[in-house]
């Protein structure tokens, strides 16, 4: 062999060996083995490899056979630790050298008894669970074209808004709408929902089992519901708002403006609404001025109002008031909530509303009244001017965590001037009615939650209200009643009801450990009504006579000392509610110098049963027996003019009226189920009631209240919802039947029975498509029948078809069409309406434009047919003609 080859081989071998040596020299070790205990293999044992500083290098677990393997460990000294729950930990000191490829450690672990009485608890307190709020993520239901909060809320499932803006969750009307936890308007929330813009709202919360008084939360048995609107972050603590102007043909216009600032300490909300398109921006002023809160502890006297005898009405049923409301309305409302200190909250609310409305109606009445048959025609044009100014200051002071003092002061002045031009049977007649209403209302409430589940409320209230009315008619239609007055040619009546109310009430609520609730109330209410009416016959401006029998100087005082008790027994799926009210009344009546008094005592019991059969079936039922004491309008003794041709008089004596009532409601499913049904029926029997004995003649009618036995009222109603998945549409079925029976006397007849039946069936189909198109169609039949000695009936049908096209977030178009069919009219009994709205939002801009067209088919009037127990009538209403508005909205 040559010398070089040998040398090469040696060199290569040395390199090779060195390479091999280095490979093995820095070799990583795998640690493996098995872990067992006295019985067999142990799985899931922790195997920890720690270095000299006790830091964890790596770890592994044993598998189902007890074997483990930890790979790629560098050489060094370690501690190998085996631990498992219920076993003593085993630690091995190991030393890995470079040469070790794998090392094996098999380990046996020994059981350790586990201590059971040791419990580790953290100091955190758990939150108590109260399932009473539902939050809606509105993003699935809105499309960004909503203008007002009312339109936003219409889209939240479970919330129903009826045609005049009353918001309900299920069947329950909401108490209030709060904005970020603060409430401006209470039951007068419609003014907010109709005006506040929707784009500032991020989320809507439905608070069920809501308590107006936070100290009653968890104590009172409440099924009240409130809404809380959560503002978008960008809208908080800054001044923002919007202005919307719409102008159209023939002086139709609308101007809306909102200016808001919702800070943490103070909240301000100013709004204004001017329109001539028939909209009522206050949404029912009465709910703002004097909300009626049923069953709300800490409120007495909510139902105490003065009375007005004459009311020139502009009401019609059947469809949207905005179609017949020829108006010119201005509303300005200033509202603020201040929190000057942590404990004190002050709310100030004020609004001024001017409204001028015109109303047009033509009526033909065919009257059949025992012995008399005649036909009356009226061509009625009414102009109402109403001015209302209202101010309210609410102060709430939280004395401590368990005590609270609230005070509310309200002052209201309204003036009304109604003038009507009436052609009555060819005779030109004008009516003038001037009303003024002043009301002062002060209430104080002290709440003390003296134990965790026991609350005492002390309430006081003072109300002073005055309603003078001046009424004059420029015709004298009452020759037959006043045959001696041959020169009379007009009549006037001055009437005033001055009402004063003082009430005090102590209310104790005691919720027991087992969730049963006991409530006791002791109180006294005092109401004094002065009713003075003066009816005069005039010849031009010369006062002829104030005829006897037509003047009232009435003073009626009712003092009610009462004890009310209520006990709610809460047994799992049953809830039994028992109520017993004791009333001791002290009544005094003075009628034109004739005095009388009375001290009646009565007991009102009531029993209710709620049964939650299971998650899907719920039944609620109530039986109650009620005695009520009549009001001042039932006790006066002389005739009063209540319209241009009718007189009315009371019983001139005391009366307590008894009634029994039973109600049952059955609910199947929940509103979010595919099938949901709700049925209820109510039966009420009035053992005593006030009916009328009337004289009906062509030119006048006189009606006197008389006490009769036995009137009954029955209603059954059923609503069903079924969702058809195949067509993504929901079918609604609405069935109802009402029957009412009472007796009265007309034109000296014997008491005759009047029975009225009302049947209604409605069907609706609405789509829930995901895309840009949606439809909604429906139809409803209503049949009314009145039976006396003769039977009269008629059937009306309303059908509608709505189409919505939302092409994108920028453009949307809505079309609404309706058809009304009034049965029993021989001609002109079918009416069609078509409305549309289109909006365009400039992208990234604060400006939005739109076009609205209402009544495009220009239906100028509609006629309907109605029946009563003495007449059948055909009534024609004039409608707002076609108008088109161009709208511009600017947000800031």
């Amino acid at each position, binding site marked *: 062999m040559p010398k070089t080859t040998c040398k090469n081989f040696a060199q290569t071998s040395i390199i090779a060996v060195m390479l091999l040596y280095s490979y093995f020299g820095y070799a990583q070790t795998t640690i493996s083995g098995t872990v067992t205990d006295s019985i067999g293999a142990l799985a899931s044992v922790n195997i920890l490899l720690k270095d000299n500083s006790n830091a964890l290098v790596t770890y592994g677990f044993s598998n189902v056979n007890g074997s483990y393997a930890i790979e790629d460990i560098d050489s060094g000294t370690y501690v190998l630790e085996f631990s498992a729950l219920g076993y003593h930990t085993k630690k091995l000191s190991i030393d890995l050298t470079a040469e070790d490829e794998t090392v094996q450690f098999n380990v046996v672990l020994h059981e350790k008894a586990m201590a059971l009485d040791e419990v580790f608890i953290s100091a955190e307190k758990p939150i108590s669970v109260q399932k009473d709020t539902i939050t809606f993520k509105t993003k699935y239901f809105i499309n960004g074209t909503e203008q007002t909060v009312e339109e936003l809320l219409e889209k939240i499932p479970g919330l129903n808004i009826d045609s005049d803006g009353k918001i309900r969750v299920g069947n329950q009307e909401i108490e209030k709408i709060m904005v970020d936890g603060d409430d401006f308007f209470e039951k007068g929330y419609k003014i907010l929902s109709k005006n506040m813009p929707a784009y500032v709202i991020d989320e809507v919360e439905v608070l069920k089992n809501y308590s107006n008084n936070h100290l009653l939360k968890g104590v009172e048995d409440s099924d009240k519901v409130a809404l809380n609107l959560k503002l978008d972050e960008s809208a908080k603590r800054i001044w923002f708002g919007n202005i919307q102007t719409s102008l159209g043909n023939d002086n139709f216009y609308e101007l809306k403006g909102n200016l808001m600032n919702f800070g943490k300490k103070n909240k301000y909300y100013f709004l204004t609404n001017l329109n001539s398109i028939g909209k009522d921006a206050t949404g029912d002023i009465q709910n703002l001025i004097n909300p009626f809160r049923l069953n709300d502890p800490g409120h007495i006297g909510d139902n105490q109002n003065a009375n007005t005898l004459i009311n020139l009405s502009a009401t019609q049923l059947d469809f949207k008031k905005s179609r017949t409301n020829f108006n010119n309305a201005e509303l300005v409302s200033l509202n603020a909530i201040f929190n000057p200190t942590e404990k004190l909250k002050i709310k100030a609310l004020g609004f001024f509303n001017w409204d001028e409305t015109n109303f047009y109606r033509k009526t033909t009445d065919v009257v059949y009244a025992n012995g008399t048959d005649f036909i009356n025609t009226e061509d009625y044009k009414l102009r109402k001017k109403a001015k209302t100014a209202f101010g309210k200051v609410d102060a709430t002071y939280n004395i401590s965590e368990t005590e609270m003092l609230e005070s509310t002061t309200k002052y209201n002045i309204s003036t009304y001037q109604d003038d009507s031009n009436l052609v009555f049977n060819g005779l030109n007649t004008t009516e003038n009615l001037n009303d003024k209403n002043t009301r002062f209302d002060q209430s104080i409430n002290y709440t003390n939650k003296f134990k965790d589940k026991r609350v005492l409320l002390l309430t006081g209230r003072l109300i002073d209200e005055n309603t003078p009315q001046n009424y004059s008619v420029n015709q004298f239609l009452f020759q037959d009643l006043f045959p001696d007055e041959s020169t009379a040619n007009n009549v006037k009546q001055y009437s005033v009801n001055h009402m004063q109310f003082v009430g005090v009430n102590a209310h104790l609520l005691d919720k027991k450990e087992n969730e049963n609730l006991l409530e006791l109330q002791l109180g006294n209410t005092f109401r004094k009504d002065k009713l003075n009416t003066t009816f005069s016959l005039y010849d031009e401006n010369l006062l002829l006579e104030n005829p006897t029998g037509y003047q009232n100087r009435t003073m009626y005082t009712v003092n009610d000392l009462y004890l009310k008790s209520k006990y709610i027994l809460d047994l799992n799926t049953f809830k039994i509610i028992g109520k017993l009210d004791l009333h001791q009344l002290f009544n005094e009546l003075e009628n034109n110098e004739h005095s009388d008094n009375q001290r009646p005592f009565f007991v009102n019991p009531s029993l209710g049963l709620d049964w939650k059969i299971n998650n899907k079936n719920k039944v609620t039922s109530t039986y109650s027996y009620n005695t009520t004491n009549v009001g001042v309008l039932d006790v006066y003794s002389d005739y009063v003019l209540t319209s241009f041709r009718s007189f009315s008089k009371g019983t001139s004596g005391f009366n307590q009226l008894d009634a029994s009532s039973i109600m049952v409601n059955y609910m199947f499913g929940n509103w979010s189920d595919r099938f949901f049904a709700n049925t209820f029926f109510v039966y009420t029997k009035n053992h005593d009631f006030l009916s009328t004995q009337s004289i009906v003649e062509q030119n006048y009618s006189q009606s006197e209240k008389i006490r009769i036995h036995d009137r009954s009222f029955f209603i059954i109603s059923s609503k069903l919802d079924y969702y058809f998945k195949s067509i*993504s549409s929901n079918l609604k079925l609405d069935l109802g039947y009402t029957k009412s029976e009472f007796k009265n006397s007309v034109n000296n007849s014997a008491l005759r029975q009047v029975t009225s039946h009302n049947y209604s069936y409605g069907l609706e189909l609405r789509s829930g498509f995901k895309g840009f198109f949606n439809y909604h169609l429906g139809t409803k039949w209503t049949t009314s029948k009145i039976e006396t000695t003769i039977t009269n009936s008629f059937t009306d049908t309303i059908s509608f078809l709505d189409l919505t096209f939302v092409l994108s977030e920028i453009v949307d178009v809505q079309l609404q069409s309706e058809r009304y069919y009034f049965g029993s009219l021989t001609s002109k009994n079918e009416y069609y309406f078509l409305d549309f709205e289109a909006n365009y939002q400039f992208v990234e801009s604060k400006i939005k434009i739109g076009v609205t067209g209402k009544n495009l088919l220009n239906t100028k009037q509609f006629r309907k047919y109605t029946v009563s127990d003495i007449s059948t009538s055909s009534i024609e209403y004039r409608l707002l003609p076609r108008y088109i508005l161009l709208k511009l909205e600017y947000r800031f």
Partner: protein
Amino acid sequence: MKNISLLIFFLIVSLPLTAQPDAVYTSVNYHTKLNLDYPAEQYYTLVFKGNRSSYIEKEYIAVPIPNSKTVDYTNHEESEIFYVNNVEKTLHFQEYIDSKKYLVTANFPKIKWDITSTVTDTVLGHLCNKAVGNFRGRTYTAWYTPEIPVPFGPWKLQGLPGLILKVTDSLNQIDITATRLEFKTLKTLDEKLDLPTDYKKIIDEKTFLDMRFASRMEQIQRIRATMSREAKLGPINIKTDRTNRWEKFYEWETEPSTPSKSE
């Protein structure tokens, strides 16, 4: 004589209650604070014995405004339960769609925990080490205690050499903390360690997410179709942004930002 019997009596009475590991299970209560869409709190209980654990839902409370308690309107009839089997390496959970129960099989979470940190903390009376890991788009910091040498933890997080007693995420949207830990005898176990048998079907996770999305869509359509006449509806806007989802993306998605139908 009397003294001795008294002594024996006291000894017996003061003997600690113990049991063999076979007859014992562990129960840990967790309090979860979430800040995803809106603040919410949940209570869960983790029970484990041997190689299996169940993470069971107890209460859910969302608290968007102070002084009010809220509940999400999609109420389950029964609880959501996660079942982990550490030996077979399986993760199942039971869920409801349209009121029907399904058993969903999920990919066993293989989380690469970084255990190099030497920071320690004490949670619930136990010394814990810190570990950091990524799972489905979120970075979690878990505090585990080798004093309880089991690989279990809350929700889908497991695989550390000790019970996880506290987890937070890097965006401060999730915080799960153990509030109570007990060892109990098997006789008192009424929670479920075994997989349920009364389900309608076994489905995989992707199928489940697609089915749940379709069912929620249908519920929304159904609710929209029950509105009254005054409500005008437009197209449904679904936000597919995942920043407020607990699991930001799934392993079967190719890019993390693909908005799949899964909610």
